């Protein structure tokens, strides 16, 4: 009897749990239809509704009572330009966003507009699921918008154009992102070494850092490298800039001098670079464990005083700060230098196109002009906001409190060019606020000044980015002397590329690594070139050149 009642009790408990859970879900279900009649579609006759999909973010902090459904940014869009935003779904972050976009496409369930990558843009165009926006863009985009999106000579817009039809709005950003060389300057002083001007200097420095162990750790290495150094997404602890020093480039289509395009991965300059890396490896300048270390792990070498040289983009000081600033004091001094060259010809940084994602408008969208309105408005509020328009950046309180409300704007494009390099170092050096132009200038200036006047030493990193000897200060020279090389191929992946690119890259990394780690002789590279051609490389080159013939300027 006792046992029976106990079982009954358990069943009852489980049931009650299930029921409460059901109750909650239905409640939530009911809430949504309730909301919809409230929408003021009828009240204001010009308000149009546009649906999209969004990615949330760890660093997006909502104000009390706000959410993706209702927040001051969406309200502001509705009030200012008469576009009411709704979300078909919201993902927790960028990685999941991409997964869910794939699902939306595969199940043919597109919102009015959303962000997709280059391959998806091509697929959607071919599947006839997205709208040709040539006319909509032409009619509704303001002059400012048109100017803004073609600052780079219209290159990025061209990547979104198929057979003369504009199929998407490039989610543009500045393509002129160079890699720099970061070196511990306090160690240079300690060991009485010159600043790295040539490749030979750099190798001497790396060797001195290894043999003399200025960090005093007992297990020094020359340079910090992570496991995927030949990948362009490795924006710090990579080796692409090292290749660039030898006039070699990673998977870039470049002119061969006869008007044809060739792939940089198989050029003889790569062999020189690999040989140099092999030498460095033999001398112990490279941590043999680099193949298993991710960026964060490899960066520990820097935080721990085990390595004092690293390649990376302009924002790298933000990474270095974790080791360089401790308890409000700068304990490591870093300097930033342009990448040195192996010979008298200056090294050229390899750069991308500055666009890998696009905003596309569904064929079913009723108000494509609403999307263009969003674009126009974003450009206005992001570049020269009036005091009230600060709501788009900070929310209803109009002041910075680290909530990152700019993430709420559903359509964001960045400047294709900036003049940070001309303005910021000068402004910070002379403490001259008057020459600042953009919002970006102002935030960076404020941060750097906090370091300069000592109120926040943690802002050391901004000073090394924007300050008089910072990374940005090196940009104008690179820009003016055109010391960069841009990929000549900007179409969607060709059939062979889609098929073989990944395999070829894997093969390449394997061979590069083996040579680097001194497991095979550097002549193995020649064998790799042959194999690369056979495994689809020749086919790819042919396709790329066919494309080039029709797109050459």
């Amino acid at each position: 009897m006792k046992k029976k009642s106990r079982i009954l009790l358990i069943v009852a408990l489980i049931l009650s749990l299930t029921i409460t859970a059901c109750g909650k879900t239905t409640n939530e279900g009911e809430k949504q239809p309730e909301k919809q009649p409230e929408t003021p579609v009828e009240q204001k006759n010009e308000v149009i509704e546009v649906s999209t999909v969004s990615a949330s973010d760890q660093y997006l902090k909502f104000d009390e009572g706000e959410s993706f459904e209702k927040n001051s940014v969406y309200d502001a869009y509705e009030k200012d330009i008469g576009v009411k935003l709704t979300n078909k779904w919201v993902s927790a972050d960028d990685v999941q966003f991409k997964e869910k976009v794939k699902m939306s496409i595969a199940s043919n369930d597109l919102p009015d507009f959303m962000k997709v990558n280059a391959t998806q843009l091509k697929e959607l165009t071919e599947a006839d699921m997205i709208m040709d926006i040539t006319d909509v863009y032409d009619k509704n985009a303001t002059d400012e918008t048109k100017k803004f999106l073609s600052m780079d000579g219209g290159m990025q817009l061209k990547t979104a154009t198929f057979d003369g039809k504009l199929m998407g709005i490039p989610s543009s950003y500045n393509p002129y992102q160079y890699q720099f060389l970061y070196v511990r300057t306090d160690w240079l002083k300690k060991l009485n070494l010159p600043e790295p001007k040539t490749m030979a200097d750099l190798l001497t420095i790396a060797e001195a850092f290894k043999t003399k162990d200025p960090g005093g750790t007992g297990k020094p290495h020359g340079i910090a490298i992570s496991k995927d150094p030949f990948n362009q997404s490795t924006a710090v602890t990579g080796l692409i800039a090292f290749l660039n020093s030898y006039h070699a480039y990673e998977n870039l289509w470049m002119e061969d001098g006869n008007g044809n395009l060739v792939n940089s991965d198989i050029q003889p300059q790569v062999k020189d670079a690999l040989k140099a890396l092999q030498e460095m490896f033999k001398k112990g300048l490279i941590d043999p464990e680099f193949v298993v270390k991710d960026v964060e792990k490899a960066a520990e070498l820097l935080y721990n005083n085990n390595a004092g040289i690293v390649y990376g983009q302009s924002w790298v000081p933000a990474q270095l700060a974790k080791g360089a600033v401790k308890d409000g004091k700068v304990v490591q001094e870093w300097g930033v230098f342009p990448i040195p060259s192996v010979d008298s010809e200056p090294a050229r940084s390899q750069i991308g196109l500055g666009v890998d994602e696009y905003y596309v408008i569904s064929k079913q969208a009723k108000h494509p002009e609403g999307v263009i309105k969003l674009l126009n408005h974003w450009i206005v509020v992001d570049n020269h906001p009036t005091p009230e328009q600060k709501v788009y950046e900070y929310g209803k309180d109009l002041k910075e409190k680290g909530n990152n409300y700019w993430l709420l704007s559903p359509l964001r494009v960045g400047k294709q060019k900036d003049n940070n390099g001309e303005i910021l170092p000068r402004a910070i050096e002379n403490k001259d606020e008057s020459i600042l132009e953009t919002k970006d200038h102002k935030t960076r200036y404020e941060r750097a000044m906090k370091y300069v006047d000592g109120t926040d030493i943690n802002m050391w990193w901004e000073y090394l980015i924007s300050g008089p000897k910072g990374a940005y200060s090196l940009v104008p020279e690179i820009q003016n002397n055109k010391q960069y090389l841009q990929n000549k191929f900007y179409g969607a992946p060709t059939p062979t590329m889609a098929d073989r690119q990944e395999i070829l890259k894997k093969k390449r990394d394997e061979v590069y690594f083996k040579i680097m780690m001194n497991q095979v002789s550097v002549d193995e590279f020649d064998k790799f070139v042959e194999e690369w051609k056979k495994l689809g490389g020749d086919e790819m080159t042919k396709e790329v050149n066919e494309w080039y013939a029709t797109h050459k300027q």
Partner: protein
Amino acid sequence: MRTNRSFGRKLFLICNFIFLASVSLLCLMPIIHILALSFSSGQAASAGKVILWPVEFTTAAYANVFGKPEYLRAFWVSIQRVLIGATISMFLTIITAYPLSKDSRQFRLRTFYSWFFVFTILFSGGLIPNYLTVKNLGMLDTIWALVLPGAVTVFNVILLLNFYRSLPKELEESSLLDGAGQFTTLWKIYVPLSLPALATTGLFTMVGHWNSWFDGMIYMNHPENYPLQTFLQTIIIKMDFRFIKPERAELLIKLSDRTSRAAQIFVAAFPILIVYPFLQRFFIKGIVMGSVKE
């Protein structure tokens, strides 16, 4: 129980012991490492000083975790999911396994149904059709999307089915003779007898529900409805550096919360760590009992 052990036997036992000990150590180390990380200070963690013992002991990471409303919300979703999911799943498994354990004379379409279920192990509709089905049934963004697809795990059904077959037929006959129907026989005789097997399949189901993250990401349209593992995935997956645009670079400086990550992983693994020892004795017995037939 004294046996004369030969030298070879002893040697084998020693080697075996060392081998198994090192395997279990290998399994244990990562957990201890994470635990040590979660109790260390952020600076020690990002400098790579922490191995198996906390450095600069602090519980700040745990305070941080329990102060995060989104973490606790996701935790609650997961608990709901496990309770509802396991209940439904167990119920369906039992009422599916029971009739299939009868022979074809009693249940004529038995073979057809058996193959019907086995078929679903071998072939599945694939991700997109699954998604479309769930969507068209209006289950997106509700807990049912996590619970109903996959509520019948055929593997568990087979396990239980074999267990029922191994029970003596006389039990059923006598209960029918006493006037019980099939339902009464099932709930009064078979279910109580099969508790070890049920504990096993129940544990499988619970662990499965607790650990799965992909469906949460696919079927949930708002991060508020994510189960815990889907939420955790967002903090563990590394940032893709190619997509760090200059505007995002500032975020990088805040990225070093390794200790808090470790704490969140540990808290998430904890409920299952607790459940295991209690069900473990059934666990071993259950699998073996279902598989052996006279």
